[in-house]
């Protein structure tokens, strides 16, 4: 915040939003499966082909050990990147504006902000059984003029957040200087 968006004197943070935890759990399930896969293959080999790879200094053993290691390192690295993209994807709502810090890929960051007084309509959408039971959904903020719509996917408690944002926009007044920008 202090680095990406210096706050004005009369500005304070009202909400700090990030994606629902279940969104990351979906990634965890996939990566845990890929991490477990070589161990499962190893168990199958030990169970059904115990005569293979008995000599630890053999060509086959060394190649398999290095391939196994490289595979695990690659999956761990991808898992870590997935976590960074989840953790650094943040929406910050202050009493004056909404800021979106979107970590799309490791070297692709999109930072945008929207003045609250520009908000005309806030829509929340909860779609699907999992989203309904776990309470997450999408918020679409429509603005005045020709600016793009702001979409906040997979936020927890979208109805409550949408209502709070709409109330904040009603109490917000246009500043003297233009403070809407997209980076």
């Amino acid at each position, binding site marked *: *915040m*202090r*680095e*990406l968006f210096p706050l004005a004197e009369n500005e304070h943070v009202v909400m700090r939003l*990030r994606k629902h935890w279940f969104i990351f759990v979906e990634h965890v399930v996939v990566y845990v499966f890929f991490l477990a896969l070589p161990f499962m293959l190893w168990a199958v080999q030990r169970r059904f082909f115990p005569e293979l790879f008995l000599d*630890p*200094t*053999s*060509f086959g*053993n*060394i*190649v398999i*050990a*290095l391939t196994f*290691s*490289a595979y*695990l*390192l*690659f999956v*761990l*690295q991808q*898992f*870590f*990147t997935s*976590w*960074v993209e989840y*953790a*650094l994807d*943040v929406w910050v709502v202050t009493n004056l504006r909404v800021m979106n*810090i979107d*970590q799309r890929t*490791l*070297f692709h960051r999109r930072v945008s902000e929207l003045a609250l007084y520009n908000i005309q309509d806030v829509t929340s959408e909860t779609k699907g059984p999992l989203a309904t039971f776990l309470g997450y959904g999408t918020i679409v903020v429509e603005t005045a003029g020709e600016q793009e719509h702001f979409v906040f996917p997979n936020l927890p408690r979208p109805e409550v957040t949408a209502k709070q944002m709409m109330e904040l926009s009603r109490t917000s007044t246009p500043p003297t200087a233009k403070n809407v920008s997209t980076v």
Partner: protein
Amino acid sequence: MNIPVFALLIPYAIFLVFILIRLFSNMYHVLRYAYLHRASLVMASLFLAAVAVVLTVTIQAVPPTTWGTTTRVTLPSTSLQPNSLDLP
């Protein structure tokens, strides 16, 4: 055919450099923007610990004492048993 173990380690080392660059890039993001998510520091520590475990096990599987040696490529025998094609 004998192959030096060192030759097998070269592609692994190149791949390892690629992985380490990605890991340090991730760490850079986590440390720089740690104020956005405090738990990211804990998660980053766990990932680094996991990477350290994988590297440690790899070094145990292919110890440095073997890096200067050669390894023999032995293919499994495919010769048929004398009576395996006997028809009844």
